[in-house]
């Protein structure tokens, strides 16, 4: 087999290749796949780590700024000795230690109107762990334009939310949140204890693996929520908005 895997590389994935319905075929699909992660904080960093452990072929990371102390309670890709260093430099270094065969590309800025098209263009799937609706809307509009899947992961306090957006088949973020909710306007510094971003990150990692490999049943068109305070979970069915300004005219455009 293969030039696809280096010597000893498959040995790392032995335990997951054993999973019924996963097998070497899914492992090969993962190895051939690429994911954009933005941002790479408590949620996105957990996704990056999970995908690196699971054997994704290539990651593109977008995250601005330098590491501060208060990241350390939830960011799995950085340690206190890294405080003051550029975030993506540390994340790349850590991910290479996790998986030496992983291809990595990183930009030291958050997603913006200027860079979103180029970033989404590089990958098969987008994992959105951004705290701001502006960034989320940009990624959402771009995956709709490029027809690529997006896994959305979000958290606040002890609560978490995950859904999979498949443009054309499922609602897009704009169908779900036509406008940025008022309650989300004044939040720059939100309360966070590690377990909530990790639970969102773990769930979102598995969703990305499902979408990329065809294994299992993804949360397409369903919003999963979790509250770690009492371990309650919900799955809500979501519907497309036919008048959605982002994805609603897609079919009409295709017909013309």
């Amino acid at each position, binding site marked *: 087999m293969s030039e696809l895997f280096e010597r000893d590389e498959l040995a790392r994935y032995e335990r997951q290749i054993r999973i019924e319905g996963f097998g070497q075929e899914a492992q090969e699909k993962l190895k051939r796949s690429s994911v954009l992660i933005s941002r790479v904080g408590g949620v996105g960093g957990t996704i990056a780590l999970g995908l690196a452990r*699971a054997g994704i072929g290539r990651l593109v990371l977008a995250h601005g700024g330098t590491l501060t102390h208060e990241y350390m309670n939830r960011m799995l890709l950085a340690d206190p000795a890294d405080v003051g260093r550029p975030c993506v430099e540390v994340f790349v270094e850590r991910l290479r230690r996790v998986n030496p065969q992983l291809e990595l590309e990183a930009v030291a800025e958050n997603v913006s109107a200027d860079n979103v098209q180029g970033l989404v263009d590089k990958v098969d799937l987008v994992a959105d762990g951004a705290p701001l609706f502006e960034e989320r809307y940009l990624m959402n509009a771009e995956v709709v334009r490029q027809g690529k899947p997006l896994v959305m992961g979000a958290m606040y306090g002890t609560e978490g939310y995950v859904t999979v957006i498949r443009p054309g088949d499922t609602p897009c973020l704009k169908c779900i949140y036509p406008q940025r909710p008022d309650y989300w306007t004044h939040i720059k510094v939100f309360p966070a204890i590690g377990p909530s971003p990790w639970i969102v990150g773990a769930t979102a990692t598995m969703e990305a693996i499902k979408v990329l490999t065809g294994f299992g049943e993804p949360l397409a068109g369903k919003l999963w929520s979790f509250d770690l305070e009492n371990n309650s979970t919900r799955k809500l069915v979501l519907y497309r908005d036919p008048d959605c300004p982002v994805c609603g005219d897609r079919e009409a455009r295709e017909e013309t």
Partner: protein
Amino acid sequence: MNQPSLKSPPSVLPRSATDLPPLSEHEKKVFERQIQLPELGEEGQRRLKAASVLVSRVGGLGGTVAMLLARAGVGKLVLAHDGEIEHENLNRMHLAFHQDLGRRRVDVFDETLRRINPDIEVVTEPDNVHEGNVEGLMRQADLTVDGAPLFEERYAMNAEAVRQGKPLVMAAMFALEGYVSSLRPPHTPCLTCLYPEQPDYWNVKVFPVICPSSVLVATVAAMEAIKYITGLGDRLEGEMLYFDLAGNVFRKFRVERRADCPVCAAPAAATA
């Protein structure tokens, strides 16, 4: 059997607020975001710093629990795990890296945890839990998170937790499925109430695992430990959380004590 109320006092650890260690300026900065949680606050953070947790084993599940508790600011971890790092560990053992292949597991785990939290105290046992070491290991901790793959180890920890009257968070997984329950007899069943005998289907030495499921189980288990230590939220006492990440199915089952449990029923009767 008469079950005492499931609602328990805020923190079950016998530690008064005046005995808690102060937080350094560095710790206040690192834990700023979680101190903001009103239910946790600075006192909760000081309770975490004062706390000690036994984790065994320290693999995909237990190692992730240890990593998460170190991030959250737990003061002391007692870790028991035998063997050396192998290739097939690296798809899920977050405390080990490619460069660590062949090294003794507990040494690698200790090193990684100190990088995460330089102030943490780590006690290591380069062996899995067994009848001979379980008492001494558990004496060094306020509570236990059980992430062992074998029932022999689980039963040993369960019986000892009952003897010492300490909470035990039971966490288990297989492929995409996971299970978590917090055990604290007589308020809850013990492991032997739930599984009087080792189930036949569990003659598994090499089980399938992919890291999102082990991270999910570990996260819920770590949160249960944090709840025991700080009093935050509702614990999985008298309940078992089950999930299957393949289809994102989550269920909570009610679990009950056995009146004739050979492990936990007798002591309760004696004190009644």
